[in-house]
Every structure is written in C-alpha cells, then in structure tokens.
C-alpha cells in the first residue's frame, strides 16, 4: 500500500515536470548557446582560470533539434575539454533543445559536476530525461545523482542557466 502510494506521487511529480517543460520557453538555440558561453566566460574570469569557451562549447543544430555540449558525453576522468575550476573541480554537460516558434524548449539535459579528488560525494549529476520512465519512483524524469549512478533523487526542472547558478554559486562554494 505504501509503495503504491509512493509510485502515484512519483507519477504526479512527473506529470508536473511535463507541464512545466511544455510551458517553459527559452530563446532560440543559438541564443541559448551565446548566453551559456557568456555566463561561463564570467565564471571563468572570476575564478581566474583559463577555459577557452569558444573551443569548449560545441553546438550541433540538426533540423528542429540542437545539441549544446561541453566536455565528453560520458565523464571518465578529467580531459582538456572539461570546464575546470580553480578548486580542481570540473564540469561537463549536454543539453538538447527543440526549436519552436520564436524560441526553444528543453528536451533533455545532463550536467555533471565532479568535485576535487578526495571529496565525498565525488560527483553530482543533474539529469532531465526526454520522457517519463516506466517506474517514476526509481527514475523520476528530472533527477539528481548524488555520486551514485543507480540513485536518482527527484529534482525540480531548472533552465540551463539556473542549473549553472546552482553549480557555481552552491556546489563550487563547497569545494
């Protein structure tokens, strides 16, 4: 009975996530790319770190979709393609947008922040899946991995810049 209730609540949460995503409008993909690049440039300057944003951020428009990537699709250790903080932390992400009239919608994202060596948890990953999972309790559509791939904690939908705010103004401060 308790498990059934938990699943219903998880389904309701996924429905709210779906509504929020449908209603939210971002600028067209190339403008979102420009905004993210400018945002990361500011953070890099504040940290006095050298991150070549024009090289790190990769943009791939494909029909009505656009992919914005920073760093590898799968984090298997530090690479020159990551965004590096002065603390020793690193960031990679992938963001998929769908172009709609006068703007775009978020389809999916993955933001992985890896803390400096020796910190626990080792990483946090913010994921937004493209569609609900059959078991929304185990895998909410928008979730956070607390350093464990198999654990997914529900997380509210954030726009691409808001997630970066959490990463730089919250997580980075804890390094």
């Amino acid at each position, binding site marked *: 009975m308790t498990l059934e209730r938990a699943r219903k609540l998880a389904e309701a949460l996924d429905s709210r996530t779906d509504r929020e995503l449908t209603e939210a409008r971002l600028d067209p993909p*190339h*403008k979102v*790319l*420009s*905004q993210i*690049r*400018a945002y990361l*440039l500011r953070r890099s300057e504040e940290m006095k770190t050298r991150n070549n*944003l*024009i*090289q790190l*951020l*990769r*943009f*791939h428009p*494909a*029909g*009505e*979709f*656009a*992919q914005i*990537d920073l760093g*590898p*699709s*799968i984090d298997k250790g530090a690479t020159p393609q990551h965004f590096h903080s002065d603390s020793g932390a690193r960031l990679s992400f*992938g963001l*998929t947008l*769908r172009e709609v009239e006068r703007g775009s919608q978020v*389809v*999916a*994202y*993955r933001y992985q922040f890896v803390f400096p060596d020796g910190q626990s948890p080792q990483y946090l990953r913010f*994921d*937004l*899946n*493209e*569609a*609900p*999972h059959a078991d929304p309790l185990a895998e909410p*559509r928008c979730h956070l991995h607390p350093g464990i791939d198999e654990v997914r904690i529900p997380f509210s939908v954030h726009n691409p810049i808001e997630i970066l705010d959490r990463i730089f103004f919250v997580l980075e401060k804890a390094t």
Partner: protein
Amino acid sequence: MPEFSTEPFFDIARRLDIRGETAWLAVLSPAADSTAALDQLQTELQSILQRPSRVIQLEHSTFEELREALHQPDDDAVILSSGTGLKQEKWRSLDIMRSALERKGPVILWLSPGDVANLTGYAPNIRSFIGASIFLAGPDSGIMTDAERQERLNELSQHFGFTGDEAVRRAEARELPHEPEFVEWLVLLGRGDLL
C-alpha cells in the same frame, strides 16, 4: 582593400567588453546571409555586454534622427549599418556630425566591403574613432565539426556497447532509454525525429 583579420562575433563582443564604454569598431559584413550574421552579432553583444543592442540603418536616417537615436538611450550597444553601402556624400555628412555620434555605449559600424575606402577617404574623423579595429565577420567556431561529431558517436557506441544503427533500431522499437545520453546520440545521428 587592406587585409583585415577574421574574428567570430564572440571575440568581437569580447573586445568591446574589455575596452569598456565609448568603444568603437567596424565589422565588414559577409557577402552571403548578411541579415542572419547581423542577428548573430546582436546576440553576442547582448550576451557578452549584458546590455540591449539596436541596429540603426544609416542610409535612411537624417542627421536629427540619427542624433536622437544614438542618445535615447545612450548606453546600449548600437550597430550602425551601412546596408549595401553608403555614397561618398553620406560619409562626408556623417563625418561633419561626428561629435553628435559620440555616446556612452559602444558603437559598431556594420560595413559592406566597399565602404572601407569611402570611410577612409571621406570620413577621416570617424575613421580615427575606429583606428585599427576593423574586422571581417568570421564564422562561429563553436559549431561542432564532423570529426568531433563522429568522435562523440564513437564514444557513445563504445560506452554502451552497441552501434548507432542499433540505437536507431531500439529507438524505432521504443526500446531505447530516455536518458540524455541517448537523446544526444539520436540528435547527433540526425534522428531527432525518433524522440
């Protein structure tokens, strides 16, 4: 025409950001798709400078209209577009009103290739505002190359242990997970239609 360096709009906006207010520079518009390029320049200016940007067409603006437009407001980023090119008389009259062009916010002259000679010959004072800061509009080097796309596809295939064709087959059968890595995979394969 002298050689000018090619710079992406991101770098051009960065130059203005570093120089601070009252900065001037000129950009030679690309021959093809100038309207889209102008839109991209505006986007980068807004993102990097964190202030609004406007385009003012020089050809059809009277002295009074231009002065008013430049000073109301006077702190946003303004792109003065010469359109398909200005006549010598227009450059002369702009040069005479040079002091009225000075403002707090940055100014970008958006020129057609033929404008540079006329700017130098008939608007020497405006030319001096710009100095050596004339650039050719360059492509955005943030666009993923084919080699980079292939590298990412290989990385995904190796990590998950099946090919892109198999990913497409699973997506068609509604068996591909909905996680962001698989979404990226389909988009990079040009199969966003399966989402």
